[in-house]
């Protein structure tokens, strides 16, 4: 599908538009906050503790007088770095493992298949805790845990896709003509599994944002000198009895970012499905849900025939 058409399809849908829009905002914030924030996020001023939102402090201040807005703003950098790193690791691990489990000798394939099935059940958080116990908490731990934990899920999804592609006639012909495994992978397999992998990529990033928040909350994610939404939640948690409202901002930031990533995944999947492209009427199917970790994406509701009419069940003769 042509790139321009794809992007148009993506942005036409509200999920895609919101996803792209919000994530652009986050990425821009991450870049800008490297060089400038309204106030120093770590600047403490006990006399300014717990100020209500005002022009000088749009989100108010926390127990030690830090400006919450600046902190949340600065933390976007952490989020983006972790998300991208996790996504890359997960994809590499996932596709690599999947390729290993599809295009190699039989005994390798079988062992990898069993390995994937076993590993898929392991929750990411537990992997992270094990790593944290060995190496101490850090963002690297988060990235590796999500990368490996979600990577296995990606491996499972990709593997079934790869097997389908590997069985097609053109791949068999290519191999019969002596095309090596590497070339087959590059030229035939990867382009075909790309849409699925992209969707999984966005889901893995969503997982990483939640994982980083959770682990930082527990104290095993971002270190104290790195701004992190999860850490802020942990700091504010102690005072929830007296200042329940302050937690709104970091939590909202996490929620919207995860939502944006999920919706983007949905939108990418819908936009790359030729059956769902609209015509004049401009209506696609109602959003098929994808889920962030820990579940894998559920099956989609059946799409209608080629026309862009509202969904109709069963037979149209």
């Amino acid at each position, binding site marked *: 599908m042509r790139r321009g058409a794809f992007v148009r399809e993506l942005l036409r849908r509200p999920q895609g538009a919101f996803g792209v829009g919000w994530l652009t905002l986050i990425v821009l914030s991450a870049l800008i906050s490297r060089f400038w924030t309204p106030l120093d996020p770590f600047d403490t001023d006990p006399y300014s503790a717990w100020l209500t939102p005002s022009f000088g402090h749009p989100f108010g201040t926390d127990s030690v007088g830090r400006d919450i807005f600046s902190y949340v703003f600065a933390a976007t950098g952490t989020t983006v770095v972790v998300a991208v790193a996790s996504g890359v690791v997960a994809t590499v691990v996932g596709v690599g493992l999947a390729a290993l489990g599809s295009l190699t000798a039989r005994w390798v394939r079988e062992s990898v298949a069993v390995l994937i099935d076993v590993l898929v059940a392991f929750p990411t958080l537990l992997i992270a805790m094990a790593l944290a116990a060995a190496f101490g908490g850090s963002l690297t731990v988060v990235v590796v845990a999500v990368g490996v934990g979600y990577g296995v899920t990606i491996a499972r999804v990709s593997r079934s896709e790869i097997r389908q592609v590997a069985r097609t006639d053109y791949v068999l012909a290519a191999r019969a003509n002596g095309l090596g495994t590497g070339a087959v992978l590059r030229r035939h397999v990867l382009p075909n599994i790309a849409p699925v992998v992209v969707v999984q990529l966005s889901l893995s990033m969503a997982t990483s944002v939640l994982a980083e928040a959770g682990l930082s909350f527990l104290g095993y994610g971002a270190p104290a000198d790195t701004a992190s939404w999860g850490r802020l939640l942990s700091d504010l948690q102690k005072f929830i009895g007296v200042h329940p409202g302050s937690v709104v901002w970091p939590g909202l930031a996490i929620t919207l970012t995860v939502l944006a990533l999920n919706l983007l995944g949905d939108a990418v999947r819908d936009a790359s499905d030729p059956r769902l492209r609209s015509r004049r009427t401009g209506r696609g199917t109602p959003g098929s849900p994808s889920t962030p970790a820990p579940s894998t994406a559920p099956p989609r509701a059946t799409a209608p025939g080629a026309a862009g009419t509202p969904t109709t*069940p*069963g037979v*149209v*003769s």
Partner: protein
Amino acid sequence: MSLVIDDLTVTVGDRRVVDGLSLDVPDGARVGLIGESGSGKSMTTLAVLGLLPDGARATGSIRLDGRELLGASERELAGLRGRVVGTVFQDPRTALDPVVTVGRQIAEPLRLHGRVGRRDARARAVAAAAEVGLPDPETVVDLYPHQLSGGQRQRVGIAMALINRPGLVLADEPTTALDVTTQAEVLALFQRLVDEQRTSLLFVTHDLAVLSRITDHAAVLSHGRVVERGPVEQLLHRPEHEVTRGLVEATRATTWRAS
């Protein structure tokens, strides 16, 4: 039981899938509705049953023995479906509930419309299974749909449709999804049962050869409109409309006819 469809129009969104269709199925008659995919034939069947998909609207009149069906309540229609109107659907792979035994599905119309106890229902399901030629009926009724072949599942569908001895049978491409040999068998079965039970029949298909075997009169549908109608022999040998001619050509193209 007679069915009179008068100026039926079915719209889905802004499209007319059935446009001013009028069709008569007198008591005991066997009438065909033929056309290509998308011509609106299935929609007609669904309109009669009151099972049009969400977003579809029907206007006109559909009278079963004089009783108006369009606009009748869901309750009323449900009372007629499976009792006085039996339906056989097209795809045997998907028309049956995968987690319910075949016997219980055959007996479902019985239990819905009458006070039939479980043992009675099973016995009658076994009898119905035998009637449609299913092998080893006593065992078959306890099997699940995925354990039967396509042809066998379609026989189940027929048994289900006829178990209450309905006055009218609607058959929506019942043999289309089957291979040619099975098609012939199932068609023969269908013919025999409709003959024996003397039901009226509305048979929907895209295959003129099949139609010629089982119906006497037919209407040709194209884009929701009737473009030609008459005795099937006439449609087959002296087609007037180009759509009809196209259908005749398609028949000749198949080398193996169900004869």
